């Protein structure tokens, strides 16, 4: 009996200590202390000895091939710098590994990363401020070069006035549509929410008369909440404030946007991707007339579209404003490397976004170039002429914005998504769902900031 009690006690102690392991991760400030204070204005401007730059990325298949070619070209031009490209799985896996590496003080020299993930590393002081490099006469960028970057892409890497990331692979959320279905129904490409609704109604078809559409007018992605921002902005609202960390889920503007989307779904002229998994699948198969998806899905769409179906794209229809959502990753340099490694990483970041190289990457991968002048590169120009759909994403840089970067912002949007699923299933009213999303989302945001 005594033995059993002792065993029980020990099990309890062990369990509690293990739970402790979970709730109290390694203090990240320790990492910064170990690294030491970084003197930002003292940067190297020349690499004389052989230096290795480790670059973690999530580019696979033909995307990886293009990146390898660019790295080879860079190494030919900079024989002292070796770029060690390391594929770390998809984005989620890359970000999980980065988190583990940060806690083990094993971060790579540089990484491909979304700004909403980088914000955590910026807050923990683990990211190299690129301003001293950018402003440096020898290794920096001229005013003309800086002006050649669409502002929304550079802004996505700026925190407190410091550039912590350079634009890399970019894309835009657009409306794909079946050209022939539009012509047949006499529908013009919608430019406003009202026109969009009418178009979806006209294009929805119930061929067997069972009350369920066989061809839907419009399909949205399953995780509609992650990319909800453009509709909120177009209705005059926003998802959250980066300065105050306040959520704007329960506002009249959000309600107007959600009522519009829900109206389309409830009237059965729109649906979410459901078992098709991706919104573009039913359009590629002729089971829907329009879908909302990223420009970087173009190559997937081209491959999977049935013969005889013509698909083109347009910017999202607007409402009170015409704001367009852009997304995609940047490249960031961690401050844990040596001065030589950090300089090498900066030079490679800059190299990746020269007009020639960003145009090459765009041409090979289907992403958008990160420079205005990339359009003038003859090869890319010819490529756009042969595939005009690829130029759609280049039209809206000046009315574009990139998504939220708040730490835990994605968690809050996930909560909104759960509530929206209830709304779309007809189980909850829009005001109730938004009220709950606001409360639960705020808690999720606070919780994420504690980690």
């Amino acid at each position, binding site marked *: 009996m005594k033995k059993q009690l002792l065993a029980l006690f020990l099990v309890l102690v062990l369990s509690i200590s*293990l739970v402790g392991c979970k709730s109290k991760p390694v203090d990240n400030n320790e990492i910064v202390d170990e690294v030491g204070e970084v003197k930002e204005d003292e940067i190297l401007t020349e690499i004389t000895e052989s230096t290795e730059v480790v670059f973690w990325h999530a580019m696979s*298949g033909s995307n990886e091939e293009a990146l390898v070619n660019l790295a080879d070209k860079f190494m030919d031009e900079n024989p002292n710098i070796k770029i060690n490209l390391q594929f770390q799985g*998809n984005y989620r896996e890359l970000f999980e590994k980065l988190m583990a590496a940060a806690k083990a003080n*094993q971060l790579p020299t540089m990484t491909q990363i979304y700004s909403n993930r980088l914000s955590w590393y910026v807050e923990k002081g683990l990211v190299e401020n690129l301003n001293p490099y950018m402003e440096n006469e020898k290794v920096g960028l001229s005013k003309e070069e800086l002006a050649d970057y669409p502002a929304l892409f550079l802004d996505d890497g700026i925190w407190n006035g410091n550039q912590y990331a350079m634009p890399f692979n970019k894309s835009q959320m657009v409306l794909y549509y079946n050209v022939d279905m539009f012509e047949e129904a006499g529908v013009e490409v919608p430019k406003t929410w009202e026109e969009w609704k009418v178009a979806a109604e006209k294009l929805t078809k119930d061929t067997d008369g069972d009350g369920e559409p066989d061809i839907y007018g419009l399909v949205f992605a399953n995780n509609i909440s992650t990319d909800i921002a453009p509709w909120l902005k177009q209705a005059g609202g926003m998802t959250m404030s980066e300065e105050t960390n306040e959520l704007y889920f329960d506002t009249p503007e959000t309600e107007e946007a959600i009522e519009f989307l829900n109206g389309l779904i409830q009237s059965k002229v729109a649906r979410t991707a459901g078992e098709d998994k991706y919104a573009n699948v039913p359009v590629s198969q002729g089971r829907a007339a329009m879908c909302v998806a*990223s420009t970087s899905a173009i190559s*997937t769409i081209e491959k999977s579209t049935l013969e005889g179906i013509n698909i083109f794209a347009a910017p999202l229809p607007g409402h009170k404003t015409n704001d367009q959502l852009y997304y995609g990753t940047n490249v960031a340099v961690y401050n844990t490397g040596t001065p030589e490694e950090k300089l090498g990483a900066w030079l490679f970041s800059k190299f990746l976004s020269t007009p020639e190289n960003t145009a090459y990457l765009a041409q090979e991968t289907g992403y958008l170039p990160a420079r205005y002048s990339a359009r003038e590169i003859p090869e890319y120009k010819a490529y756009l002429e042969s595939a005009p759909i690829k130029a759609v994403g280049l039209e809206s840089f000046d009315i574009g914005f990139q998504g939220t970067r708040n730490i835990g912002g994605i968690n809050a949007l996930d909560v909104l998504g759960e509530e929206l699923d209830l709304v779309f299933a007809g189980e909850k009213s829009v005001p109730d769902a938004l009220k709950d999303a606001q409360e639960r989302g705020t808690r999720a945001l606070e919780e994420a900031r504690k980690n």
Partner: protein
Amino acid sequence: MKRTLQKTLIYMILTVGALFILVPFIWMISTSLKPSNEVLIMPPKFIPSKLMWENYKIALEAAPFKTYFKNSIIVTVSVTLGEIITTILAAFAFSRVNFKGRDIIFTILIATMMVPGEVLTIPNFVTLSKLGWIDTYKALIIPWCASIYSIYLLKQHFMSIPDELYNAAKIDGCSDFKFLWTIMVPLAKPTIVTLIILKVISSWNSFFWPLIVTNSKEMRTLPLALSAFTNEFGTDYNVLMAATNIIVLPVIIFYTILQKHIISGVSKAGIKG
């Protein structure tokens, strides 16, 4: 007449069961030979309009399969051997050897099974990087060379072997070690085979841990090759299925060779894979 009816019924049920298991395999092979635009077509098509053998070529070119194969084999064999040896020794100690605190230690070990693996990923990664093991075979093999679940399973089997056997062996002058390898292990063969199967499958399919602890292509294992065919906007299912066929082939060969042992092992140990 009654017997014929009974047999027909049994065969019908078995056929349905076999189809249930075979259809995903057939689907996998059929998809691997389809052009991209026929993969998600509705209603689904089993026979492709054109056989795309080049999907296999694309799959093989997407990753250095030779290196990945070699690594997967090294890791799977080492991990399986390591686990079986530690399991046999530990299970024997916990079931036959009397030492102070035996039950308490065993209870603590069992308690660790309650901790979800995900929670341990980061602490384990930190430990391995402090040991300088990241991107080495050590990181892929050593953490998986012991399993509490296997120890528990084998310990239960060892405990079911009568004490009389142990006492008789002792009287004949047999050492504990000899008793373990010449009497206990052969008697526990079904359970050990089951443990080997479970380990080989889990190690061969392991994705997240190899991804976390390796960086270079020289150290990566086969399942990591599969992630090359998926991006955030879609999956190249046809090429993915071609790569999957290449990867599962060794498991199918392993199963075919050991089929007899596996079936008897699973039925005697009463454990399903």
